[in-house]
């Protein structure tokens, strides 16, 4: 029976080529947009090199000091992180590092802008970089302030035409560092992004060690994904006891350790104290997708509806020979879902091509979007949702056609 639906669907699509084209055009366009958006979200949210463990990590990137009528927000300082984070229970590893900062390197007559991040040794244990040459620096390098650096592939290409950067020297902030490792490029949108990574302790001044606020981020690796909740609670319970700098002015300290998704959502949905907005963000994403599908769905519904009467004879015959209205509903819904799934496959090819173009044109610097099986899966789910959304009403309308009237085939719109 199902097979006969498929055959029927195919026949109908082939006979009315313009309608099939108009439908497919809308379906493809809709799904390409949704798939590119999915690819971007996947790129931002799901585990990818280097933060392959992002289902177990927590990020501390913001700190607020709040007092009567004043509020000061910045990144946490080294002293705060060093003293209060390392002994949190159920934490496997802790890394303190600076967010990547653009600097300029001058070679010959041109200047290159590259990003530099200062990190500790644990950074390389929590994040799994893809080392092309050499390896990371470790805790001893950080302790002894060794002038060593890891650089990205892109940086290697720009600085050393011949490749093989390991063992060569580079200048950062007017200090010389020996390259010990080369890693594959990291996306701008991932935790750990930079072009050059050097030990924190190589900073020219050690003043950062005394700072309570500003300058650093901290990544925690929990023992299990489920432990993150209790770590967040433990951190929150410790905050009131921490002595604040300038306590005449400030009374409250707010620091939150966010999961990757929470950290992402707080960037877009501002809440008063930077609390995670994961639920709201999820709802907004779904709402946005549905809103975007509204017009394409209406379009497809109208196309499908306009063809009810053309097929009224078929509907009448099927009804006369014993089809329940339910079977007709399933048949017409199947036809539409089939078309959207086919459109989904086409859209996947088009998205692949579009993403390659976006990457090549460097529309978003340092970002390489790609399709993977997860995106493919989501794309097909979206196609299915779209197919049902745009197919249910026309199919229902068709299945409800009165058999005697359908056979009379003298239809009034």
């Amino acid at each position, binding site marked *: *029976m199902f*097979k*006969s639906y498929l*055959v*029927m669907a195919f*026949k*109908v699509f082939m*006979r009315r080529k313009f309608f099939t084209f108009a439908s497919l055009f809308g379906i493809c366009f809709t799904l390409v947009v949704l798939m590119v958006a999915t690819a971007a979200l996947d790129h931002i949210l799901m585990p990818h090199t280097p933060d392959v463990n992002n289902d177990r990590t927590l990020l501390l990137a913001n700190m607020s000091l709040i007092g009567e009528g004043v509020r000061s927000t910045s990144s946490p300082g080294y002293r705060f992180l060093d003293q209060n984070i390392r002994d949190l229970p159920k934490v496997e590893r802790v890394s303190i590092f600076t967010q990547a900062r653009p600097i300029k390197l001058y070679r010959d007559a041109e200047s290159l802008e590259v990003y530099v991040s200062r990190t500790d040794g644990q950074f390389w244990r929590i994040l799994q970089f893809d080392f092309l040459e050499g390896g990371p620096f470790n805790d001893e390098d950080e302790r002894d302030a060794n002038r060593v650096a890891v650089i990205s592939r892109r940086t290697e290409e720009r600085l050393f035409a011949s490749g093989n950067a390991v063992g060569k020297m580079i200048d950062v902030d007017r200090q010389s560092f020996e390259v010990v490792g080369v890693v594959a490029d990291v996306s701008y949108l991932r935790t750990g992004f930079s072009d050059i990574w050097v030990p924190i302790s190589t900073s020219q001044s050690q003043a950062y060690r005394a700072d309570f606020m500003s300058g650093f981020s901290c990544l925690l690796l929990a023992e299990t994904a489920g432990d993150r909740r209790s770590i967040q609670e433990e951190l929150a319970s410790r905050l009131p006891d921490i002595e604040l700098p300038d306590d005449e002015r400030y009374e409250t300290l707010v620091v939150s350790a966010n999961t990757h998704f929470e950290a992402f959502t707080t960037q877009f949905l501002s809440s008063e104290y930077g609390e995670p907005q994961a639920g709201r963000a999820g709802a907004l994403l779904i709402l946005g997708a549905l809103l975007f599908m509204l017009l394409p769905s209406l379009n497809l519904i109208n196309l499908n509806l306009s063809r009810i009467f053309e097929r009224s*004879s*078929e509907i*009448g*015959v*099927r*009804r*006369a*020979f*014993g*089809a*329940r*209205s*339910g*079977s007709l509903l399933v048949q017409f819904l199947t036809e539409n879902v089939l078309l959207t799934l086919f459109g989904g496959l086409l859209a996947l090819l088009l998205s692949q091509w579009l993403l390659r173009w976006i990457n090549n044109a460097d529309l978003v610097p340092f970002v390489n979007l790609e399709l993977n099986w997860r995106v493919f899966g989501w794309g097909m789910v979206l196609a299915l949702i779209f197919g049902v959304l745009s197919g249910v009403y026309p199919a229902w309308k068709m299945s409800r056609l*009165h*058999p*005697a009237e359908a*056979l009379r*085939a003298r239809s009034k719109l």
Partner: protein
Amino acid sequence: MIRLDNVAKVYRTARMETMALNQIDLHIAEGEFVSIMGPSGCGKSTLLNVIGLLDEPSEGSVQIDGTGIAGYSDRQLARLRNEKIGFIFQSFHLVPDLNVVSNVEIPLLYRSMASKERRRRAIEALQSVGLGSRIHHFPNELSGGQQQRVAVARAIIGAPRVILADEPTGNLDSQMGDEIMAILERLNQEDKTTVVMVTHDAEQAKRTARTIRLFDGRQVA
């Protein structure tokens, strides 16, 4: 086999009511060959639709094979139609997107049956109407008479006890019309299938055992 008691059918629109059928009492025994005649617009097709459970009467009761259908759900009606009734239409109503054998299979789609068995029976039915060699053609590649024979095959494939034919020869020339009539008569005599046929043609009506005449929605003979 078919029993109508005091059946009326009224079509209502915002401005007027049309009485399509009025006080029809009809009893058709199993194995009968009955024709329905009357001028156009007298309610012949409506009567056939009511008998075929495609349309519900506004008043009165309809019994098929001893069971009243009052209060039947869409699902129950569909099942009755599927198992007991086969339809033939004046304008054939073949699905243009399907080839001949697929068209004939349609009634069996709504029964649980292996697709091979379905195909076998469809070919059998087509052979019995003399179209065994054209099973892969599409309707638009066939003549009117051939199309109607496909429709007959579709009507008999489910081995229904009743065949309802709405002017089956109305769109055909007389020779093709005779062929269709011959098939219907054979079905009636050999398989004891009850046949109810709407017709304009007095000659054809004479060939049936009984003729029911309608005028303005009323049974006049």
